[in-house]
């Protein structure tokens, strides 16, 4: 048994979903995503028992490309994030009607397939293929099932596509260059390549372009808010919950160990860019009137901090970043889902048209409040663990980084609570707001349970990821 099983399940799931037709598509998709989750848990057990669940097969002889999937603790953690969020995301869409549902759900599963592959791939080119494949489904999801004016949506998604493709093509050039030096695309061989400081800088920048656009890091973020707003909520969840973690994960897995000298030399610049994202995202979020856009900018602020954490090159920074990736994945999916629930009832995303929900639906209000508090990293939530670890690692580099990065908590609390006030409190709205249905409740409760459970007890995850992070750090510090 090995990790390719998950990929096979998701890929077959995508095809089956397409062929069962519109009526059953959502249920079949949910079934396959749950099957993938189940198998991942089984694989996790195998992994913890010390079994080897990685795969390596020759694929193309010349140039030498292999079908290699590597499952270490870090990859498994990201795999679990993907397969845990996918069923939640699919389930959350059950309240909506989609035209051509079979295509919609098939694309979701296909995207989960590509993202899982990205997290697992241990061959540079295989990784690149999965990385690009993940782009196609989200493009169509946002284009066909998105909302808002069609012309604006077209512009937003094509900009997104060209941006991300542009970034990743430079990464492809970097990979080909590395291949000339290493004679193989396998990650272990790429780790061993000796590059001069100058070569490392260029390769680092080529990778950075790809990742900075995907994450996004300032000044490559301009596609983000529009696409988040125009995409259907499911697409937004996939983008913010999982896809941008591909960028952050790749920084840890590929960029830093391959070009460690450049990473050390220019560390401060990249940390500063991340922190600039924190401050910029928070300030812009303050002024947003559209709920989805506000969440998009808050997401920009949070990932800026995570990116800063990865570039510290310390165990704490990396660990905090990974923890925060997982925590942010859950909380942002929860928040976008809450926005979708409100939209289902009020048909608006404009904060000023909301309000007075608390009196009508106390259950939803309390769940929303927990999500808001988790997102601002209240102690005892999972986000606190991650964010605090990152801030701690930043303070070791330079205390000012920690101080400026810490504004995320202050500003975050400000705009999130202001948003909460506007959306939930105030006078009772003339429109009625039904409390959460059972389906909606299940998704939210699962998310909240995860956030609180790991907030109190993050040890299983830290134990899972720390060994592989230490291995990566030892590669970074080899000279």
């Amino acid at each position, binding site marked *: 048994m090995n990790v390719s099983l998950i990929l096979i399940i998701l890929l077959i799931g995508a095809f089956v979903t397409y062929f069962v037709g519109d009526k059953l598509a959502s249920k079949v998709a949910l079934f396959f995503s749950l099957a993938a989750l189940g198998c991942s848990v089984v694989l996790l057990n195998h992994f913890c028992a010390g079994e080897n669940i990685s795969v390596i097969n020759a694929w*193309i*002889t*010349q*140039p030498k490309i292999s079908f290699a999937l590597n499952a270490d603790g870090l990859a498994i953690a990201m795999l679990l994030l993907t397969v845990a969020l996918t069923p939640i995301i699919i389930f959350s869409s059950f309240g909506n009607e989609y035209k051509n549902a079979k*295509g919609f759900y098939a694309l979701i599963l296909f995207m989960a397939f590509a993202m899982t592959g990205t997290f697992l791939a241990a061959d540079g*080119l295989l990784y*690149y*293929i999965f990385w*690009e*494949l993940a*782009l*196609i489904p989200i493009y*169509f999801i946002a*284009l*066909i099932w998105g909302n808002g004016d*069609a012309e604006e*949506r*077209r512009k937003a998604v*094509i900009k997104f*596509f*060209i941006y991300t*493709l*542009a970034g990743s*093509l*430079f990464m*492809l*050039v970097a990979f*080909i*260059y590395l*291949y*000339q030096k290493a004679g193989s695309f396998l990650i272990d061989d790429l780790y061993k390549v000796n590059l001069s400081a100058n070569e490392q800088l260029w390769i680092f920048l080529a990778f950075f372009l790809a990742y900075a656009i995907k994450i996004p890091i300032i000044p490559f973020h301009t596609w983000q808010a529009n696409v988040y707003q125009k995409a259907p909520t499911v697409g937004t969840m996939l983008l913010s919950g999982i896809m941008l973690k591909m960028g952050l994960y790749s920084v840890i897995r590929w960029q830093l160990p391959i070009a460690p000298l450049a990473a050390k030399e220019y560390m401060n610049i990249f940390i500063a860019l991340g922190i600039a994202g924190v401050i910029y995202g928070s300030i812009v979020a303050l002024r947003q009137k559209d709920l989805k856009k506000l969440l998009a900018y808050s997401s920009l602020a949070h990932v800026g901090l995570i990116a800063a954490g990865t570039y510290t090159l310390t165990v704490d920074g990396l660990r905090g970043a990974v923890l925060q990736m997982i925590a942010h994945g859950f909380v942002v999916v929860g928040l976008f889902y809450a926005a979708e629930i409100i939209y289902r009832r009020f048909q608006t995303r404009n904060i000023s048209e909301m309000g007075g929900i608390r009196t009508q639906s106390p259950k939803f209000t309390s769940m929303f409040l927990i999500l808001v508090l988790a997102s601002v990293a209240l102690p005892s939530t999972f986000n606190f663990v991650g964010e605090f670890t990152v801030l701690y690692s930043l303070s070791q580099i330079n205390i000012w980084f920690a101080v400026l990065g810490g504004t995320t908590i202050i500003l975050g609390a400000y705009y999130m609570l202001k948003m909460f006030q506007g959306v939930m409190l105030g006078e009772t709205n003339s429109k009625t707001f039904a409390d959460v249905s059972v389906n909606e409740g299940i998704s939210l409760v699962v998310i909240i349970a995860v956030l609180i459970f790991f907030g109190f007890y993050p040890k299983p995850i830290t134990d899972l990821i720390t060994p592989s992070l230490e291995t990566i750090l030892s590669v970074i510090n080899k000279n």
Partner: protein
Amino acid sequence: MNTLIAITGLGIFCLLFEILNLRKAIVPITILGLLGVLALNFSEFGSTESYYNNMITVSKFSTAFSSLFIILTIFLVALSHNFYENHPTKISDFVAIKVFLLAGGVAMVSFGNLAMFFLGIEILSIALYVLAASERLNLKSNEAGMKYFLMGSFASGIILFGICLIYGAMGSFDVVEISESSLSAELPIWFPIGMVLMVIGMLFKVAAVPFHFWAPDVYEGSPALTTALMSTLAKVVAIATLYKLISVLNLIPSLENQDLLPTFENIVVIISIASMTVGNIMALRQVNVKRMLAFSGISHAGFMLMTLLTIATSAGVLLYYTAAYALAGIAAFSVILYVCKNQDNEDITNFHGLGKTNPLLAAILTGSLLSMAGIPIFSGFFAKLFLFNQTIQSGYIALVIVAVINSIISVGYYFKLILAMYSKEPNQERTGKPFLIYAVAIVSIVLNIVLGLFPSLVLDLLK
């Protein structure tokens, strides 16, 4: 050699069918015949022989490319059935011309003598002139045919002039003799001049910048099926022949002897960059799909010319690239043929809402455009990957970066079409599901994906 004879025989048979009044059977029988020729060609693979005083040389290179040409012709003949529905009396002519065109193409990649090379070019070109002007009552088609004929015969003249100069320098038309004497230190100046003229003529056939001006007008004016043929088969034939010409005449070593190699390489780099950039930027502004694909073809020619820089090792890469490009082109054109069947133009508006009215064909067109744009898992991605890999290996990293930037630009216009299919409302009803068009579209896109999943199948053929 047997392949060439068989193809010519098949062409003559096609003409005879007309006399025997077997018009209805002509497409299936020709396809079967071509499949037989394909099998025959495969059986020759691996042997290296020359026939008729070295007029024709069969090598791995020629058989591999001939197979590709035959496969493309099968697709094009299959598409003829629906395309010429309204001209049942002429179908045998059109099919026969396509088969003769294939004979010209095969002769071009298996020449062993410059006379044969020129014969091949002329057979191919004359067939193309006729096909371009084949819509007799359409002014645009006539214009296209005339333009192509004037420009094409001019290029043929230049090639002929080049061949004469080479003969003057070397005293022979035979490729082996020329390549042997081209390595000697003392070469008359006629030899490089002759080579330059021949290369210019071939660049014209490939439609590389700055010899590309005929392409958009001719592509737009010609009947859609002829455009499909020009942009896939004819382009592939021309680039393969150019590659073969330069490699068998030992041009690279002979230039090296005379310290002219850097100049040659610079020129290739410049033409390659100019073709990609001009092709892509012009394509961005087109509303006519055929014209857009003409410019996209120019930019792909720029990519393919990059193989000339690594001529000793890149035959496999060129074969893979051309196969990926041509298969995607066939898939795209079969959808275009279906969509624009009863329209008087091929504007992008015809494609509005195709994703709703005909999801399968829309998906196929999307796939072929993604392949041309170089998105994995389609073979277009691997073609670019292998090409870039090869080119970086020989140190042209700047050229590769320009190529990458061009790939990004190309997304702009390929996606314009995809956007039109999926995000606009349908504006017309289409009925009928012509079997052959569907079959060609599906088979070619499947082949394209199979090449993407198992690139070694093609890539290792020319080792």
